[in-house]
């Protein structure tokens, strides 16, 4: 919907965020990390019916978007969420939602004014 927007805002790095989440398998991985906390690729692959290579590809994509980070623990690589980036995705829809709220208030003023 039309709304006032300023140009050239410094958030160009949000694009990969939406790409990374626009895939059911990746969303599932994010959900698993939400529920289960930091975990290894072995655990993340369990029960998914996907190969470890496929999961790795998704993890790299999510990492590239800044949604995940990983660190070595012994011989294993442990993956965990970067909560701050997930909050950004949610705020994106909240902003459009607020624009609707504003528009609805203008609509209310129009239809509720005495004739």
């Amino acid at each position, binding site marked *: 919907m*039309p709304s006032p*927007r*300023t140009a050239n805002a410094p958030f160009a790095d949000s694009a990969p965020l939406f790409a990374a989440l*626009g895939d059911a398998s990746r969303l599932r991985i994010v959900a698993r990390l939400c529920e289960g906390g930091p975990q290894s690729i072995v655990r993340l692959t369990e029960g998914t019916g996907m190969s470890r290579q496929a999961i790795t590809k998704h993890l790299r994509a999510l990492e590239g978007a800044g949604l995940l980070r990983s660190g070595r623990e012994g011989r294993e690589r442990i993956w965990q969420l970067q909560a701050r980036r997930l909050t950004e995705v949610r705020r994106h829809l909240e902003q459009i939602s607020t624009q609707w709220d504003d*528009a609805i208030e203008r609509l209310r003023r129009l239809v509720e004014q005495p004739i």
Partner: protein
Amino acid sequence: MNTDRIEKTVMLHASRERVWRAISSADEFGLWFGVAFKGSFAENTRMTGTIVPTTVDADVARMQEPHAGMPFEFVVDRIEPMDRISFRWHPFAMEPGVDYSHEPMTHIVFELEDSNGGTRLTITESGFDRIPIERRAKAFAANEGGWEHQSQLVGKYLALHAGA
């Protein structure tokens, strides 16, 4: 987390006829939405409006001023008198000189119901997940600055109408 749709329900102290007019008459829709249309809404019709500062609120009008005159393209989808009207548009089509016509649109449905002597309006905008990621990111970014200001506007509005 549902990233695909936004749903709003609001109780309006106005008759169903009055609310229907406000959402189905191109002129009235433009008044609160901030777009001037040429012609009237008809099913399956592509229309081009022009963004105009709203006349309802001076502050919002000032914020919209930089976008005044920009085209707003959309499609009137279905019209079911007194019950439902739906549109399709490009939700973040705000950059001058960019052709959005090949991009997917979101689907916007307005539904009316009688409720306690007034009218309940439900607005659903869906299809955000199909919008190109660059557009979503840009819109997200561009809104960052307006966020606080919008919150202030709402607060101001509520304060103004607290005694009403």
